[in-house]
Each structure stands twice: as C-alpha cells, then as structure tokens.
C-alpha cells in the first residue's frame, strides 16, 4: 500500500510539474504585456524587482545620448527616464525566465508578480487573499450537498421504480442538464431582484452579519444543485446494484429484516465507491466556480481568473498561478480518490496494471 501510494503521489507530482511547465511556456510566449500603471516610478520599481527575480534585463543610456539620437535596435518591453538616465527593459529568453521562475518558487515561494490586478504584488499572495471567499462558499456547499445528495440517492435507490424514484430521477436529470449559469442567473433574478429576499451581490466586509449570512444562500444553492444531483445519481446506481446482489439475498434468507440487511450490508458496500468521491469533493473546496463568482461578485479565485483575463490589461502571471491552482486541485482530488479506494477496500488498486 505504501509503495503504491508513493508511486501515485510521485506520478501526480510529475504530471503537475509537466503541466505547469507547459503552462508557463504557453503563457510566456504570448505577446508580453507591460505592467499596468501610469506612474513611471511604480513601473520602474516593478521592472527592477523583475530584474532581481531574473525575468528582465535592462541597459541604461544617459539623457545626453538619447538626445543625440540613440534608438535601441530592438524595441524594448518598456522604457522610462529616471533622473538623468534612460532605462530600457527587455524580457529575458523564455527558457532563462523559466529557470528563474523555478528558482524563485523553490527559494522564495515567489510564483511571479502581478502586473495589472495589484501591480508588483506577489501573485501567490493575491491568490491567498482571494481563497477564503471561494473556500467559505465551497465548504458550506459541500456540507449541504453531500448529506442531501446521499439522502436523496438512498431514497431513490430503496424505492426503485416507484413514483419517488421517478420524481427524484427526473429532477436529477433536469438539474444536471441545465447549465449552471442559467440556474445562477435565474436564482439571482428570482430570489434577489424579484422578491428582494436575498442580497443581489456578495456583501462587502462592512455589511451586517445578517446580510453576509443571507448572501451564502444563492451561491450555495447554485453550487450544490449540481453536486446533489451527482451524488443522488451515484448513490442510487450503487445501491441498486448492491440491492440486487446475491449476498443481500443471502442476508435476507438468513433471517435479517429488510432494514437490517440494508444498513448492515447494502449501504456499507454501496459506500465503498461513494466515500472516496466525497473525500475528493473536499479537495475541490480549494477551487472556485468562475461563473458563479463573476455573476454574484464573490471575490474568489474564480472571479480572479476572469479578472486576470481582462482583455484590456490582462494579468498573465496571476492567471498562471490561478491555472496552477485549478490543475493542482484536480490532480490532488484524483489522487485522494484513487488512494482512498485502496484504504477503504484494500482489494482495489486504482490505476494499477491488471
């Protein structure tokens, strides 16, 4: 088990590393953007930091030389006059930048600097600021959706082919098929604007606790609809399979009541594949829903992603870290899923060769 776990984790690390490297090269090969600030000294400070971090090089010319008609051969990334000197900043080759980047991550935990959202702030710090909002919404929605989903799934599975099952299954099909942004839009429209019961936007920190609490309802609803449906479907399918198995028949023949058989045998076995996905769901709280966050104005990392993609002044460094978060969360959830299978049922080795 230990060997298997280590192998899986190592493999995931390798995968993450390759993906992040790929992302880095793809993002850096985009046309470079200047730091978004009209003030020269802010830009100067930014580029000097970038120089120290190993992403740009520069050379200087005196004002006299520039006045005499000096024009650089290659158009610089940015140029400015500080004091009596002209500074010409150039991007270093992408491969060099890549190694600087790796070095900075390992030595300083510096994942790059923001260029537009909060110029010269560490991107990882910006992410850290935004993470709590996303996480709080996600945690509540997981807490709400997992028990509800399991409850509906058990209900539908036990009452298979009755009206209860049909109603639940139909609703599940409908809600799984309607895109989340449609659900969110109409939730906001109905619950916030039309009736005025709930706040129309995510509240600012200075608003009352009541507003802040109420503001959770729409995001949690919109996030949990999908996952309630997912769990319901999953639990129902597993339970249906177990219910028709021979060992359950044996349990009944041996004299157990129906309830005893369900609790002791059916549910326990049905939960073998369900439990890992619940654990993986908990990893998902580190992610953020872009649509929900941008529609409801939640200052989370999903919203940050959209902000960083702003067409007028994109912030590719923040975008890259955001991408890294999404990738890592996905991979981590995968590992947890696979490993917990093994812990819960030692016969299973997900991803091993048959």
């Amino acid at each position: 088990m230990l060997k298997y776990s280590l192998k899986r984790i190592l493999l995931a690390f390798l995968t993450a590393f390759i993906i992040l490297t790929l992302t880095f090269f793809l993002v850096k090969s985009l046309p470079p953007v200047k730091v978004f600030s009209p003030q020269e000294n802010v830009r100067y400070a930014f580029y000097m930091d970038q120089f120290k971090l190993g992403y740009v090089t520069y050379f200087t010319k005196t004002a006299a030389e520039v006045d005499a008609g000096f024009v650089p051969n290659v158009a610089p990334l940015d140029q400015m006059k500080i004091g009596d000197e002209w500074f010409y900043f150039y991007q270093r080759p992408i491969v060099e930048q890549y190694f600087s980047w790796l070095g900075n991550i390992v030595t300083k935990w510096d994942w790059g600097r923001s260029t537009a959202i909060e110029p010269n702030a560490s991107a990882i710090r910006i992410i850290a600021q935004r993470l709590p909002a996303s996480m709080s919404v996600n945690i509540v929605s997981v807490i709400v959706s997992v028990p509800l989903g399991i409850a509906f799934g058990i209900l539908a599975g036990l009452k298979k082919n009755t009206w209860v099952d049909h109603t639940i299954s139909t609703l599940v099909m409908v809600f799984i098929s309607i895109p989340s942004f449609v659900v969110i839009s109409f939730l906001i429209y109905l619950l916030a604007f039309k009736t005025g019961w709930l706040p129309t936007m995510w509240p600012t920190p200075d608003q009352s606790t009541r507003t802040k609490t109420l503001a959770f309802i729409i995001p949690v609803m919109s996030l949990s609809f999908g996952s309630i449906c997912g769990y319901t479907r999953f639990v129902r399918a597993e339970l249906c399979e177990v219910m028709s198995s021979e060992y359950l028949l044996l349990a009944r023949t041996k004299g157990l009541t129906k309830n005893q058989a369900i609790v002791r045998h059916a549910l326990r076995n049905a939960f073998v594949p369900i439990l890992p996905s619940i654990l993986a769901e908990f990893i998902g709280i580190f992610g953020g829903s872009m649509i929900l966050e941008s529609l409801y104005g939640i200052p989370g990392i999903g919203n940050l992603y959209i902000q960083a993609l702003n067409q007028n002044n994109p912030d590719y460094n923040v975008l890259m870290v955001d991408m890294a978060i999404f990738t890592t969360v996905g991979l981590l959830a995968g590992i947890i899923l696979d490993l917990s299978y093994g812990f819960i049922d030692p016969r299973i080795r997900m991803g091993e060769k048959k």
Partner: protein
Amino acid sequence: MGSSTQESEWGKRNSMLEDKDFELLDESPNAGEIIEDADISKDDFVLTQVDSSVHEQKFQTKPTTFLKDSLKRFGKNKSSVVAAYILGALLLMSFIVPLVDTSNTKVAHPYETYLAPKLFKAGTGFWDGTIKYSNIAVDLSEMPDAKTEEEKQLHWWPSSKKFPQRSAISKKVFTEEKYSNDISNLGTFGKEGYVHFGYYESEASDYVAFSSKAIPSLVLDNDLYLTSFDTYDANKIREKEGKDSFNAPDNYVVGESAFYFLYSELNTDNVLEDKEIKLVDYATVHNIGSAVERLKEEKLNISDIIKNETGGQTEFQNASFSVRLNVEHEHQKNTCALIRSITFESASTSENIRNIFNDMSFTDATKAMTKSINDGYEYWSSTGVRRIYLSKAHFCSFVYDTYEAAFGVRQIEGEFVSDLLTYADKGWISFKDQFGLDTVWKDDSGYFIDRTNYSFKILDPVNCPLAKEITADDFYGDDVFGTLGVKFSVHYYKYLGYTKAPIYLMGTDKSGRDMFKYVFEGLRTSLLLGVLTFAVCFTFGLIWGSICGYFGGAVDLLMERFTDILSGIPWIVVMTLIILHFGSNFWTFALALCLTGWIGTAARTRTQFYRFRGREYVLASRTLGASDARLIAKHILPNALGTIITGAVLMIPSVIFSEATISYLGLGLKNTSSLGVVLSDNQAELLTNPYLLIFPAVIIALIMISFNLFGNGLRDAINPSLKGED
C-alpha cells in the same frame, strides 16, 4: 457483450435446425423403436422433401440482428424515445429556421427593439407581445391635476419618453404611495414614481425643498424670501468643465439650479412664450468678496423682484421656475459666486407655497438626494441633511403592447414631404386637383404647396402607409421658400416596408434582432461545433485507444502517461490558452475542444480492447495469419464499437455546455452566434427583459436534457448490463 449476444443467436438457429430434423424423423411410423433383423429395401426410403433442400429453407421466426434488437430495447424506453424526437425536432429546426426565417440578424433594426414574444393575438394575456409594467412613474409634470378616477384614466400617462405610444397602453391602474414621515434613506425609493416635496412642519424651522422642475401653478406670495447662498470655488468648476482658464461669463449657468428665473405664459397669439428675468442688477451691485457675507444676512425678496420685472404680475399659470445668478466680477477673477444651496424661508405656511414644490420625479429626487455637495449645487438643504418631506408617489400599472408601439399608427412630423411625393410616384396617393395638376410638388428650390386648389386622395389603401388623409393644414412651414414640413400619421409597419406587421415568436433584442432566428442560428453553430468535435475526437480517440489497448506493454504505458498529463489540465485552462494564442473563432474553439476531448473515447476504447484482444476468436484469426490491422478493424472493433459510441455521444452536449460556459464568461465566439453567445449577449437584460434569456435557456436546457436522455437510452439499449448506471 456483442459477442455473447451473437453466440446465443447462433445457438438459437442451430436448435431450430435440430428441431426440424427431429420433426421429420418423428413422422415415420415406428419412431424410436429399434428394429432388429429388419428387411429394409431401397423402396422403404421415401424422400420427404424432393423439391428443396433443408438448408435452403427459411427460418420460421424472423431472424434479428444485434442492431434491431438494440433498437427494440431502445423503443421500450419511453423517455429516451421522446428525447430522441425532441432532439430530432430541434436539429431539424436549427437548420430549417435560419433558412425559412427571412429576417436579417446581421444588421440592427432600430425601430423593432425589445418587442416581446408573440404567438397569440394581443389581449389574450399570454405570449401576446405585451409586457405588463407595474408601478411606473406617472409623469405629472405633463399632466393636468386629476381628482377622480375617470380623469386620471383619461389624462394620466406614464412617462412618454419610455412609453412613447399611448395607443399601446391599456388597462391602466393608478396607485398612490404616501410617505408620511421624512425620507432620508435612499433605499426607500425602491420604485419609480413622482414625489411631492412637501413642507417640513416640525418644530425646528420651516424649510422648503426647492425644485427646478416644472410647477403646475405658481402664485407669488409676499412672504417668499431668498435668505442665503454660498460661494463656489472656481477651481472646481474648472476641473469639472475641463477648461484651462476660467472666466466667469456674464450668464453663467451651472446645471439647473443657477440663479435664474424663467416663466412661460400664453401670449396673445396663444403661443407659449418664454420670458426670463435676469437678476443682474442685484448681482452687479455687490462684488464678490464682500457680497457673499452680506447676501447671507440680507433677505432677498424674490416676489418683489419678480413683480418688478413682470410689471406687477403675481400669478402665473404653468410657469417653469429656476434660479440663476449672473455675476459680474471685477476684483477676483478666479472666484465666481454660484449658488450652492438655496433655502426658501417663509413666514407663513400657506398652501400656495406648498404647491410650488410639488411633483419632482423620483429620478430627479434621487439625483438630488445622491448629488454630492462638491458638484457645486444641490437642490435643497436643511442643515446639511437632505430630506424629502411628506412626499407622495403616483404609480401606474398597465399593459404595454410592444407591437402596437412599434408598428401601430404613429404620427410623423418634420420634413417628410419627399416621402409623400415618393408615395405619389408609386401611385399610392395623389395630390392632383381636377385639372390633373400637382398641388404639392418639388422643384429645384424646395417643396411647395398650392393651398387653394389642394386636393388629396388615397389610391391604394393596401400599400399606402398613411393612416388617414392629409389636409392642407397638416403642411406647415414656409410655402414661399420651399421649406415645407408636414404632419401625418402612418401605419408604421407599412412605413418600414412590411406588408404585414411582423410577429416575433421569441421577441427581439436590443438591436431589434429576431430572437427566434438568432437562437436557432446559435443552436446550429453549437450543434455543428458539437458534431465536428465529436467526429474528430471520436476518430482520434478510437485510433489512439486501439493502439494502446491492442499492443499494451511499453507502448501502452507511454501513451497512457501522455493522456494522464493531458487530462490533468483543466479544460478551462486549455480553452483559455488556445483562445489567448489563436483568438476566438469557430475553428479555434473546435481545436481547443478537440485537444482534450478525445481522451474519454481513447480510455473507453482501450478498456474494450483489453477485454477482447485475448478472446479465442481473435486468437483463431491470428493463427490463420491475420494482420494486426485486420484483427483490430475486423474482429475487435466491431464488438467494442457499441460501448464506445454510446459513451462518446454524450460528448456533443458536453461540448455545447463548454462552449456556452466559455462564451458566457466573455471569451466566446466573435462574429458568430452560438447558444452561449446569445445567452451572454442578453445576460444584462435579465432584470428588464427576462424573455431574452428564458428562450435560449429553455432551448439549451431542452437540448441538454434530451441529449442526456437519448444517450442514456442508447447505452441501455446497446449494453443492457450497464442499465441504471449513469
């Protein structure tokens, strides 16, 4: 799975053949007996079937193929069949609607914006092109004072700016809301309406709000005083106006609250005439530096000034009222006295003064309430706190027929004589008098009319847009110089060039596009994208998975690691990177979706190949010398295909979903409509015109639901063992 069904098929056939044989034997007389020492001659044998041989005989039961069997199973799943029909209908419509519907969605139709969805006749109350508005402001500034319900019904209308066609308004219901206490919280003004600014009747002091809006009637009272105003920093004005240097002009006006008095009255020719009273005298007397202080103390009796300026008149009907201060500055070039706050103080609380401050629109009130003091002026002030006292709001709820408003009879006024002459040229109308001479004509210097012989006839009432005849009085302007204007009413749909007023099933959007066509065009793009992606991903995934699964070993390991890495990248990241690099159009979208889309198919194919490649029939074929390609294509793939396809079919809805999501985030297709683009275009209209979102949302939900149901049904039919799993 496929193979086992086939095996049983063969078993059935064999057993049928055997039954046949036994039947034949049973017919012989001594069946089952063992006859020893029997004398059997050649004649004892009788041929039972002379004319045909057994193997050529048709089966008694119909043979069934795997596909037919699946189809039968599919047919039993009612919901999937319904889904398939809906899917088919939507598919068909997405191709037929854009071809049949002739309206152009590429250009804007400025006269047909925001038409509500219409299917039934107007007045049915549902899907009839009308919109029900509730609690809309009644524009009392234009309306006479109505007391009874009948008068209100007759004379009160919602703002003509927002609802220009009064003929389209029906079922008016008026409500009045009174705010008995003072309102200082803006949140109270949640709705539109007109507010009355009342008197503050508390013990503190008597303040009256000042409104620059029209006042229905103004009776000047001797007790009306202007008691104070402040100076205003000219630097701020400079900032606001964006001028480099500021020289206060002698008629400087800032906004509506400049110190200026203007009233209109009917002159002898029954035409409203603007008169203005300049308070120049007053301002020029005092230079700025000292004036301010003095003015603050001094009480300026407006009614006296007005009386002087108007020659003693004290009563005005329908006067509009605003105040402006004219300043001549001599000493301080950069300081200009402008009124920032005006407070009227009254010695008595007579009704007359109260009426002056009636009827400010909610919008103006809100503006006034929210206006920052630094803007240079404000509407009223009472010790710095802005309040509306004893306010009253009139609301109107009504039904607005958007089609009547857009296409109904409308009055046109202006220099449109050329239009009329065009109609005359087309033979729709005629201006000819009894001698056959045109009474309205055009020459080089302009348009002219012969009023004495004027004659007008509508010749073609079907095509002619005119709603009623035009008389000579409808023409106005200068007959001599040829600058002729005209006033006439038209059926606007004919005026726009339609022969019949159009009906839009899903309404129109902000640029007047027919949503019905736009949505189905979008659906077509989305489906095309889905099908294209499906085709590419399916083919590639199949090949990749086949190679992986068939050869196994090192090849498989290597290829698997590759897919592991690729599938580790979230799809949104892939989409973003592709769009950033190549821009967003149909083909980059397809590329981005294909880049990771094939992984699912490849994985499924690989599993299936692992399952089948060890089977005996494959081994047998290999022993006979079949090549790898033949084994893959002829033996393994046909058995595995059902499972793979059913899994892959669900890729189409997921592509539609991904495309819609990414478009909704604003990274969507440019210059092409897709369901996501349609939805994201109208995202902002959710509160005002929800139908613009409801229809595309319903369509996308419908297509997703039916695709999912259809896909599940297909899977259940082809792989009955997977039934119930999702």
